């Protein structure tokens, strides 16, 4: 069992949690992920590591309460225990030796893009960050990103903050304004990453994306997380989760993400009931 040391609700349905796991905290590098099981009988859920505190021995994950299991996790509080935590899994990002990198985070993807931006910044790379959200109420980690980037550009779909439109609209302007990036890192919804890759491919800018497909074990055993990269089947859990975005078959990845949509709806009802019960107990 692993204790939740810190919990912070960033916005309405996005939660940040620091969980005590000193061995993992000492080993995890940007780009790697952990598997969490909330309670006995629960799913194995992969989360990219947002940050680690080696002194405190904690691993930070930031997640959106979107499916049944993440909602259940969101119900837990500081001092509560999660049933299992395994990692760090996957390969760390290759972030050394770049002069200027554009880091793009879409929605929750900002949480995963942040450690990359931080590492690049700490190691002398100039970072431009583009962070995109549906509207200004959904903005997360802006302050943190600002601390590790020389320039930060916000885009919202409804125009309530920053540029009205998508991260790709901002990226296009930046490239056309003459910014030369030796790498773009795009992390967010599959459709966003695909759009970024289509644009950077035209300009010949190397682009790394972080894939988060459905998986079970996270150690290369089930093959559920397979994606096609450059015509070859790869396991996101051991060969990734980061890949050359220009080689990823996003259409296939988007379809594969849908396998358990029907089941998720059913489970959601069950969990909402459990969480409600928990809250009533706390209130009483």
């Amino acid at each position, binding site marked *: 069992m692993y204790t939740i040391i810190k919990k912070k609700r960033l916005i309405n349905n996005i939660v940040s949690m620091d969980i005590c796991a000193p*061995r993992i905290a000492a080993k995890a590098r940007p780009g790697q992920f952990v598997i969490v099981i909330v309670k006995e009988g629960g799913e194995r859920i992969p989360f990219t590591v947002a940050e680690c505190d080696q002194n405190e021995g904690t691993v930070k994950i930031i997640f959106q309460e979107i499916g049944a*299991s993440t909602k259940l996790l969101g119900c837990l509080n500081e001092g509560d225990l999660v049933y299992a935590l395994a990692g760090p899994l996957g390969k760390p990002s290759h972030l050394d030796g770049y002069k200027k990198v554009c880091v793009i985070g879409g929605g929750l993807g900002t949480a995963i893009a942040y450690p990359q931006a931080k590492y690049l910044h700490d190691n002398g790379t100039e970072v431009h960050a583009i962070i995109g959200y549906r509207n200004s109420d959904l903005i997360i980690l802006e302050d943190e990103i600002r601390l590790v980037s020389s320039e930060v550009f916000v885009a919202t779909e409804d125009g309530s903050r920053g540029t009205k439109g998508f991260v790709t609209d901002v990226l296009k302007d930046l490239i056309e304004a003459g910014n030369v990036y030796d790498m773009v890192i795009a992390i967010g919804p599959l459709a966003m990453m695909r759009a970024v890759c289509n644009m950077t491919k035209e300009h010949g800018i190397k682009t790394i994306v972080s894939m988060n497909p459905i998986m079970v074990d996270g150690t290369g055993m089930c093959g559920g997380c397979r994606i096609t990269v450059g015509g070859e*089947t790869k396991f996101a859990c051991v060969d990734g989760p980061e890949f050359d975005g220009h080689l990823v078959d996003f259409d296939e990845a988007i379809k594969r993400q849908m396998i358990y949509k029907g*089941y998720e709806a059913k489970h959601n009802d069950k969990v909402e009931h459990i969480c409600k019960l928990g809250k009533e107990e706390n209130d009483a």
Partner: protein
Amino acid sequence: MPNMSLEKVPMPQSEASVRNTNFKEVALGYTDEMAKEEAARCLKCKNKPCVAGCPVCVDIPEFISLIEQGEIEKAFYKVKETNSLPAICGRVCPQETQCEQLCLRGIKGEPVAIGRLERYVADWAMKNIEENHDINNSKAKVAIIGSGPASLACSGELAKMGYDVTIFEAFHVAGGVLVYGIPEFRLPKEIVQKEINEIKKLGVKIEMNMVVGKVVSIDELFNEGYKAVFVGTGAGLPSFMNIPGENLNGTFSANEFLTRINLMKAYDPDHNDTPVFIGRRVAIVGGGNVAMDAARCAKRMGAEEVYIIYRRSETEMPARIEEVEHAKEEGIIFHTLTNPISIEDDGNGWVGGIKCVKMELGEPDDSGRRRPVVIKGSEYVIPMDSVVIAIGQSPNPLIKNSTPDLETNKWGCIVADENTGITSKEGVFAGGDIVTGAATVILAMGAGRNAAKSIDEYIRGLTH
């Protein structure tokens, strides 16, 4: 006088049409009377040919004769002297190719039902006695990676010798293939956990969620004071066929399909959250025990039609005959001499069918089995909702990749001495599927036991 019946006392089983709708154990086990009757078939041969067929050298005639005398507890301890997981082995060992194959009674008629009797004494002990263990873990620290059959056998032996043993398991439950691979109806998980608990009672510690190679390396384990490391991480990497359509929704590796159902218990959705997609028509590609397990699981999960698609004929199937028979009784449809060439899209990114060719058997190949050859123009499509690929597993490369000085062969198996488990890296021993490629529970246990002996010798050599 021995019981000269030519046939084994039949194993009571649940009815095929009932059992293929639930995950309860199929074989129900002998009663006391049945066990005594079967035990009386043993001739107690002086030279004990059966023992030579047992990878862990259980003194078979001795324990069977104790059953006959009604000394079940003694019989149990006799088995336990060399086999730390008798309830598991009694259920899943391929006795027909091991101990029972060498039984004299098998020359004319059926051999003695050694496996069933082993299971009987183990189940009897679980119900009737509390095992006594003398715990003394004052000797050196030994790390065991993985908690499958090889590791459990190795741990048990080392703990009995007085070593301070810690198992590192990547999953949240111990047991390896015994819990993620072999289904509940063949090997109830409660039985597995009880046998693991007995090993824990010897003083063996198990740390879950520890992905060795990621969270800690073998060299770091030595730095933490472990004097020797045993690698028993099994063959967990699924093979795919590399045919078109393999990434369509509804196509799974047998590992994923079985892990969702067995380890994550998708068959019990009231208490577990992990789903598994089944579909109305399911094709299992392959002819081994894993394929039979997947097929029988699919049926139990509610699939209407479940097919085994295998490129050779039934004679060449690597699955145990018993498993094939059980699958047939439960309504699994066999398409042998049939090879898939692609998986067809239903138009929405899901499996719609499986395109196959018919095969015929040609000349024997390297494995000695007749090579299947495609019959020209025999292509046809079987409508299907899901496809499970069960054509084999190879070793997981996590340890190999994180331990560059550990020698592996071209299949990714760790190179280790068959009898001692000694590898190219000092202090590191290996055994089970990680060395041999996918094999059986009992062979892995035998390797684990042998490695325990050589680990003991190695550590004693260090201190002198």
